[in-house]
């Protein structure tokens, strides 16, 4: 018997066993979340999606309505802030051909992508405090009296924190897209005598699949973030309906709810945490499949 052959077979078997062992937790997570989530949602599908969470100690199931809505609001505002900034700066980096600003942005954004997200939330919270202090100092200097209070926990601060998390993902995807434009196409566009802005618009439509998949990745990243929201959106179990109040009060998100309810001692809250986890996973799965399809088609 060849010893080298034997050793090779043994090691290969070992690799297969280890990688299958590694798959078990992943499969287990998907199955557990699906099983428990579906079981909870099946009890009252519409109620889970739209009702408010039950008060602690009650027996009813309730729902996670405010958190679903909160996630939607937070992600919409964050996308409105984050997507234009990241795509426009990626255009500038590639098409602007600047010697310093472009490469520096490129490097810093790749470092930014790994910032601990809780630090981003903490910084936004700290920035609100510093701005408030500054305004009150001004108020004192001008002798106006009174104390200005900026609400710390609201959708805007939450969305700003999420936008900061989102920017590097959308930026890197867009930058790669623009960098991969073949030379002859870029030359053709510029030879038409367009201004650089119009040329950028034409080139953007050429790389729209890269931009779209970047947006998908960015949205699914911020959809799954909890840490940056802890000190900014804070979480809210109730609907806030009146107009200005929505932007002045804490707002919920599905991830914040899973964190809070998962650690709570109430069974119905924990059930709703699994339901929220299932809904979240489904949305992320859909975004994942769409972005895969876009990349595949490219």
């Amino acid at each position: 018997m060849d010893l080298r052959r034997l050793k090779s077979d043994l090691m290969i078997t070992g690799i297969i066993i280890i990688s299958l062992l590694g798959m078990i937790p992943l499969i287990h997570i998907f199955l557990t979340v699906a099983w428990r989530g579906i079981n909870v949602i099946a009890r009252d599908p519409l109620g889970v999606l739209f009702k408010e969470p039950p008060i602690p100690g009650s027996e009813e199931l309730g729902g996670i309505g405010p958190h679903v809505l909160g996630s939607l609001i937070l992600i919409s505002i964050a996308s409105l802030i984050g997507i234009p900034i990241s795509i426009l700066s990626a255009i500038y980096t590639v098409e602007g051909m600047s010697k310093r600003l472009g490469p520096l942005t490129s490097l810093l954004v790749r470092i930014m992508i790994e910032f601990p997200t809780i630090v981003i939330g903490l910084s936004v919270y700290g920035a609100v405090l510093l701005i408030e202090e500054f305004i009150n100092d001004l108020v004192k200097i001008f002798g106006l009296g009174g104390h200005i209070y900026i609400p710390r926990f609201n959708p805007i601060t939450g969305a700003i924190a999420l936008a900061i998390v989102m920017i590097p993902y959308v930026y890197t995807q867009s930058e790669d897209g623009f960098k991969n434009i073949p030379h002859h196409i870029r030359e053709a566009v510029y030879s038409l005598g367009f201004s650089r802005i119009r040329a950028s618009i034409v080139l953007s439509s050429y790389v729209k699949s890269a931009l779209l998949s970047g947006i998908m990745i960015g949205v699914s990243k911020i959809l799954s973030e909890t840490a940056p929201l802890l000190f900014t959106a804070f979480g809210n179990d109730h609907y806030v309906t009146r107009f200005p109040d929505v932007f002045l009060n804490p707002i919920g998100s599905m991830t914040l709810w899973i964190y809070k309810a998962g650690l709570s001692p109430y069974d119905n809250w924990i059930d709703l945490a699994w339901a929220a986890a299932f809904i979240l996973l489904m949305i992320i799965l859909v975004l994942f499949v769409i972005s895969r399809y876009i990349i595949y088609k490219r």
Partner: protein
Amino acid sequence: MAKDLFYLFSLNNILIMILIFVILFVLIISSTPLFEKGFSKVVYVLTSSIWDPVYDRYGIFFAIGGSLVVALIAIIIALILSISTAVFIVEISPSKIRAPLEMMVDLGVAVPSVVYGLWGLFILTPFLRDHVMKPLIDSIPVLKNFLGSYSPSGTSIFTAGVLLGIMIYPFATSIIREAIKLIPFDIKEALYSLGLTKWEVIKNEIFYIRNSILAGLLLAFGRAVGETVAVAMVVGNIVNPEFYKIFTPGYTIASLLANQFLNATGIMIPILYFAALILFSIGFIVNIIVALYLHRSFHR
């Protein structure tokens, strides 16, 4: 000809840089009350393990240590799992199941950390308590002196490390997998033409992509140190000066921030900002290293 306003786009680049600068600026400004107390106070905060709100004395060494131990456990697990899985997917698995396997690993990257946390809290924690910690301590009681005694709920630094390892290994796998795929075909051919066995070829391939593996591990380490909610759900959140006894509950920097920041008063606030600054610096250094020295080897 109309004036080209293209240069206005650069405002976005400048804005991104301002954002990064502001994040750092806020952390430093907010922790100045601690720096004003002098260098010895900063050293005291860094090197002692006290959390005493009554006398207003705090030292965050336990959290720094906890973070490093949790990340270390996670990295060891992720290293073993990710190299095997990447090799398995690219070199060993039949081509029919390759795409589904890749997809599942990539989905593992996309699962929200709070969902990992929920699963860790209700599935992994009881499992590790009943099937790893309890049998180990019961059969070899001496180990109690090194590993500590487990808590009734099972939350511990060890549990957090294992969960984090499961969390970050898909990410490390995708980096290593892409690196293996990028090995030039001539090199693979040359290896086989030497008459090497499959395992010997794989061993050489792993050596060939060692820079990418290092980059993947460093990035995974950065993620592990910064990860908050999943760890906060299973680490136990107890001030534990003996954080190296991994079966006992503890704290990491991130989970300390998540749990204590909104209750903080007085000098505790700048100390927590300082802790965040440390967290930020660890991630920053890791990523500078990767971006400057290892970036080229795995990103085109």
